[in-house]
């Protein structure tokens, strides 16, 4: 089996002492930022992007992947003990997990989420191992027109399907595309949207936008709602060992959560929210004790946590095989690839086999590390939750400043950072999603590039996007994704009306 040989080779890369160290640093840092409210993987990886100038790509991506996986593990600890989910994907975990902690079963909740994350992460990584080469085979047939269509699909799904409003999601996506277009056009050398500011000729660095939205904006938002109200941390009670009954009630939800999370994550739609919510409803339906839901049902922690981690693994499939990021974190990882001059895509598995398979192998190793970090060593992370908010957020802003000021040492960048932070605050307050900004910013220029190539190949014929079977199919899918939910909603209300009418007669 080819993938298997490649994977063995990957383990040889990932198991070198240096790369093991990067993996450990990444998973530890990832768990820490997952635990701390106000910090997330996208922000952390953005702040660490300058490391791409110092270390070789394999080391950097092993570090980033460790942070990415680690944040998923750490996030669940916070939602269980503090009931303030750091990311939308862990809202569901807080629902049941925090109730379990209040009933004195924090240990079991933490255990089922850590072990569930491990199971899902490992199966998900196996999924990458075997799915990625298949997608690569298929993707080698893609031309620029097909890639452009694929990017349109990703744009539609990340901004219009996920989140509460298609209009607001798309508006932030277009804002991101605008930010991505600022600077010199690489093909013709013309300055675009620079407003005569020389600092903007090189474009706006994605670090500034990510840090502005996720660190400055988030801090402003939390401060505006904080009012010195202190969150109650539930002390770690209950054995970390799950009882036989708890194991019995956990293992099926883990597997079902994985089965939901990985495929949905791997689709160009991406996102962890849909699979976690789906998993929650599935477990509620299938549970033999549905009355416990809402009062601390262990299935409601086990399933969504597994779904969350499996979808995180799934997101890496389109990212590595197609160069298509479907989450803010994946988009920032893509910009790290760009900073090395590497183009993720089907050719990556040929030209950078050592890097890709080393990365995948490190995901397996990272999962083992994370299980150890998050179960026997959980007490350390619980202590981190006690960092007072004033110190935490002051520290976050100081770090945000270093990360930004360090790039060019220009006050213009800092002003831009704070303006984008203010924008991020407004977006939070007015319920605009932030991830589409990052995705639009990274993917917009790539979409333009593919669009131009496709038009050059077709000698200016616009119909090329609709006559190629692959791109036509994908565009139809994108249209369905945009209009589908609305049509479905319409159909639902019609059906309910009909039912009501039938009930009346």
């Amino acid at each position, binding site marked *: 089996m080819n993938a298997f040989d490649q994977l063995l080779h990957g383990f040889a890369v990932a198991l070198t002492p240096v790369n093991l160290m990067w993996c450990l640093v990444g998973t530890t840092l990832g768990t820490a930022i997952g635990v701390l409210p106000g910090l997330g993987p996208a922000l952390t990886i953005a702040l660490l992007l300058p490391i791409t100038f110092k270390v070789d790509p394999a080391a950097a991506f092993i570090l980033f992947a460790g942070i990415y996986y680690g944040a998923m593990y750490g996030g669940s600890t916070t939602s269980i003990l503090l009931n303030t989910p750091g990311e939308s994907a862990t809202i569901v975990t807080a629902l049941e997990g925090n109730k379990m902690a209040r009933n004195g079963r924090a240990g079991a909740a933490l255990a089922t989420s850590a072990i569930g994350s491990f199971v899902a992460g490992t199966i998900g990584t196996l999924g990458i191992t075997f799915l990625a080469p298949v997608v690569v085979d298929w993707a080698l047939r893609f031309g620029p027109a097909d890639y452009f269509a694929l990017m349109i699909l990703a744009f539609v799904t990340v901004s219009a399907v996920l989140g509460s409003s298609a209009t607001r999601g798309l508006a932030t996506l277009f804002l991101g595309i605008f930010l991505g277009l600022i600077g010199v056009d690489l093909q013709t050398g013309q300055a675009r949207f620079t407003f005569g500011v020389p600092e903007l000729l090189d474009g706006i660095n994605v670090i500034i936008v990510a840090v502005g939205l996720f660190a400055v904006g988030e801090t402003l938002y939390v*401060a505006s709602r904080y009012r010195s109200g202190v969150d109650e941390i539930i002390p770690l009670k209950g054995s970390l060992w799950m009882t036989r009954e708890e194991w019995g009630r956990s293992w099926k939800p883990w597997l079902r959560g994985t089965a939901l999370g990985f495929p949905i994550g791997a689709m160009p739609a991406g996102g962890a929210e849909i699979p976690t919510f789906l998993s929650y409803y599935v477990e509620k339906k299938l549970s033999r004790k549905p009355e416990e839901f809402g009062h601390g049902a262990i299935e409601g922690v086990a399933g969504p946590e597994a779904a969350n981690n499996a979808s995180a693994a799934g997101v890496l499939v389109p990212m590595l095989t197609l160069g298509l990021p479907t989450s803010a974190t994946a988009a920032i990882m893509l910009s790290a690839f760009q900073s090395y001059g590497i183009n993720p895509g089907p050719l990556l598995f040929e030209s950078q086999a050592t890097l890709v398979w080393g990365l995948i192998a490190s995901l397996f190793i990272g999962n083992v590390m994370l299980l150890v970090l998050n179960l026997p060593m959980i007490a350390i992370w619980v202590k981190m939750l006690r960092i007072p908010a004033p110190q935490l957020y002051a520290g976050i802003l100081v770090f945000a400043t270093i990360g930004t000021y360090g790039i060019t040492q220009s006050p213009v960048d800092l002003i831009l950072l704070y303006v984008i932070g203010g924008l991020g605050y407004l977006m939070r307050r007015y319920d605009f999603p932030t991830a589409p900004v990052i995705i639009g910013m990274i993917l917009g220029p790539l979409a333009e590039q593919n669009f131009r190539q496709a038009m050059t190949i077709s000698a200016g014929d616009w119909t090329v996007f609709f006559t190629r079977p692959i791109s036509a199919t994908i565009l139809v899918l994108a249209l369905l994704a945009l209009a589908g939910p609305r049509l479905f909603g319409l159909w639902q209300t019609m059906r309910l009306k009909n039912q009501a009418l039938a009930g009346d007669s």
Partner: protein
Amino acid sequence: MPDPTGDPVVAPRGGFAVGELCIALGAIILAAVMVWQVFEIPVSPLYAQVGPTVMPFFAALGLGALGVLLLLSAVRGGWQPEEEREARPDWQALAWIIAGLVLNVALIGPLGFTIASVILYVCVARGFGSRNPLRDAGIGLAFALIAYFGFAKTLGINIGAGLLENWLESIVFGVVPS
């Protein structure tokens, strides 16, 4: 950079979707500015099937159309979640943090990263209700120095060194960096 979407909204007044209206108008104005800027892009004599203006033009068009949709939604009462609409932002906390950010931009050049960071740190901590500025300054100083020597030196990014950094480096390394 002029930022029409960032400026206008101050406070959403209960009942009227003022905030939403400003955001929608901001999006439309930004789109208009984008269209104007697209016409400023000189079309290159270099042959290209799709010139540098096509994508920006569509981006502006898209944003403008979405701005109009947002405007319609704002006129119909807005979209802000009820819970968010009722929450009164803590302006005092925000003022402290904004003051910290402004001071930071102003001072990081002349005084260097560490001192500017300590001021930022103290202001933000105050915004979050800390009542012990001296202790915060101490923690902030330690944090900024660790960040400066650890993070910046490891990543090899160059943060503006000021008086304090040079002085410390001269103690630690025995040389005064020029």
